[in-house]
């Protein structure tokens, strides 16, 4: 249990550091006033708007004010939309979780078995095929892959819509894009971490004893590989959230990736800060869950919990 507290404290520290860095970085290249106003604002209009948004105060006052509001769960108002940051992020977060969730399950279901197969039969035809396709799909830019999928499945075959949300059909192409770009790294990592933990002679010994192949893989291989796979899946969630930025942009999918890009471009500080808070919290939670799962999966580590 002590470990969990330590993780939580570490997590809070991480959130605070990330947040402070974001707070400073987004302010470095100017404020939203210039973007909100016409290209030729009189000084009076600039001053008025800065005062209204509270941007005329010294930066440390803004920082303290922001931190103390954030602690009470109030992340402020968007500078552009007339809504609170929590409402706007709430509106987008569900869409991203749906997209990333589907891609997470789909890529895990495809990549992990493939990776295990390649590790158990290194050098086989299947292993080499995996290597080749992994190289191809990991070097295609997500943006281009998305456009290719649209070109074929939407424009040419007429099966699926090109953009937007609303039905399961709208989900297929963005989720497929995200799945395809995350499979290669996940499969390759599964394969290489398995090769590390797998005492190969042990596997061969089990085979030599005449244990059926299915039992070899399920009993011997998987038990040893569970810990690295759990860690890999944790990392996977991070790369999915990153990939969501491009995918959401191409498909006009109203998620937080898309929201972050737009908000950064127009200096909507409260939204950017809010997204950072949410994403950091998600990561801290995932890390703790990961830690717990590893302890469950690996009896040797339970002792010092």
């Amino acid at each position, binding site marked *: 249990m002590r470990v969990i507290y330590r993780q939580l404290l570490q997590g809070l520290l991480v959130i605070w550091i990330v947040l402070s860095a974001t707070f400073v970085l987004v302010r470095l290249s100017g404020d939203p006033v210039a973007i909100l106003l016409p290209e030729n604002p009189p000084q009076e209009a600039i001053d008025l708007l800065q005062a209204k948004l509270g941007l005329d105060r010294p930066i440390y006052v803004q920082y303290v004010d922001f931190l103390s509001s954030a602690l009470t769960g109030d992340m402020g108002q968007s500078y552009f939309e007339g809504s609170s940051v929590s409402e706007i992020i709430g509106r987008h977060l569900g869409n991203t979780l749906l997209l990333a969730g589907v891609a997470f399950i789909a890529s895990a279901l495809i990549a992990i078995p493939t990776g295990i197969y390649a590790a158990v039969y290194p050098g086989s035809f299947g292993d080499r095929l995996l290597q080749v396709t992994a190289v191809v799909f990991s070097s295609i830019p997500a943006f281009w892959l998305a456009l290719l999928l649209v070109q074929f499945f939407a424009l040419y075959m007429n099966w699926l819509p090109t953009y937007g949300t609303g039905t*399961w059909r709208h989900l297929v192409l963005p989720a497929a894009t995200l799945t395809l770009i995350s499979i290669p790294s996940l499969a390759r990592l599964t394969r290489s971490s398995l090769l590390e933990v797998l005492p190969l002679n042990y596997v061969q010994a089990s085979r030599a004893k005449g244990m059926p192949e299915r039992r070899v893989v399920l009993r011997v291989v998987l038990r040893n590989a569970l810990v690295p796979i759990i860690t890999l899946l944790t990392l996977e969630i991070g790369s999915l959230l990153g990939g969501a930025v491009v995918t959401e942009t191409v498909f006009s999918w109203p998620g937080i990736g898309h929201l972050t890009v737009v908000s950064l471009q127009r200096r909507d500080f409260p939204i950017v800060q809010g997204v950072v808070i949410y994403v950091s919290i998600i990561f801290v939670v995932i890390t703790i869950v990961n830690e717990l799962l590893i302890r469950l999966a690996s009896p040797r580590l339970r002792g010092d919990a």
Partner: protein
Amino acid sequence: MRTILTGMTMALCLGVAMNAIATVPSAAQAKDGAITVALSGGLDRLDPALTSNGTDLVILGQIYDTLLRMDPDGTLQPAVAKSYEATGENTWRFHLRDDVKFQDGSKLTAADVKFSIERILDKSMASTHASQLSTIENVVAVDDYTIDLVTRGPDPQLPRRMQAYGGTGRVFIVSKNYVESNTPETVSDKPMGSGPYKLDEWSKGQKIVLSENADYWGDHSDVKLATFTFIPENSTRVNALLQKEVDLIQRLPIADIERVEGSDSLHVIWTPNGLVHNINLDCRSAPFDDIEVRKAFSESLDLEGIVESLLGEYGRVLSGPLPPQVVQYDETLEPRKYDPEAAFAVVQEKGLAPFSTNTSDGRYIADREIYQAINAQAGAVGFQITPRVMEWGRLINMIINGTAGPLYIVGWDYSENDASKMHAFGNSSRPTALCKVPGYDEAANKAMTELDDEKRTALWREAQRAMNESYMIAGTWQAASIFGARNEIKWEANFGDNISLSDIKIEP
């Protein structure tokens, strides 16, 4: 582990199923008067006093009325105001129609117009439209259908602010009673005006649906129901049109025009854009504090060639700072000369130090490519320029702080079709001004308060010539607003990127 995974899978399946049951956006069908339009940006808020975001204004223009309308040639026409006149040097009087109703059934009167304007001028609102209406000292409702706008000095531009186009400074008429009896959130989320269309549904971030206002005082159009969706990504927007998921798209990229024209069921609609792009030279510091250097820089550019190759028929080079659709446009201005030999000689003689400049990427049509071509041509005659490309948010901050460097490209919106917008960068007292142009300030300041149209035009022409002679602007070009539409949609675009549903005809 397994239970967690199973739980997650079930939750997701449930989510997908819920989504499938949820309302499916109707497929585009330009029939029964229902159309779907894809805009190039999202909506922020639909409170006419608080936003000047272009896509917000497109929607506001359907829901709300304005006192006046504008013809494509810039002539003002009656709308809610059936007529208007200057009753004194400092007073514009508007006579309102008495048959205008808000969408909640209440009558629109002078009190609502007064309230709409005063709300924008209220400092606590920090309205982005306030600075363009700052000459107004007092708004007087003479009776229910007569209103006086009293200004601090003569303001010939004021009636232009009473029509819908031109970005900031718009006055859309809100209902005093509705705004006062509702929260600011409701006013913004459920806009209620007296315009030809009313709000049916707004799913934020996804779509907004407008339907015809049956009680509208003006003409009715073929469009009975309009769904607007938001697709910022260019290629995605074009694909949605090719796929017939939408009937009309804003901002069709030049590169995709062939794809649209190649389809039997689609066509391209375009109009010169109100936006004029200037290469502004900063004459307060080296190297452009010397008029000969400014002239040499301007002469080193074959802008005709650059615009022709990058924009084709969808762009044109202008002789002066203003586009032809501006009422006071001076057609006698000499086009700028392309004379690289002369420019080379000047640069050699002056021995200029290298300098670096900045540009935005993607803010204006082909801004980055045009900037690269400009650098190459200026470099060919000896200007040593280090180019830097950055995103617009950073550049506009630098422009306003006066740290954007010796030259930058910026677009001015002349959708109001009036020369006064030129004063935004010409007026030497503005933060964005680059220098004092000899003879310009006198002419322009007089023009800003001259009520006689003929004299006013003469003064603005003088100002255009002064601007040209100073070489503060090394070159000017205008691009086009390009739309893609299904063949059933018959519409003549006249006001840049704006879309007026009332003007659209549907012919199956």
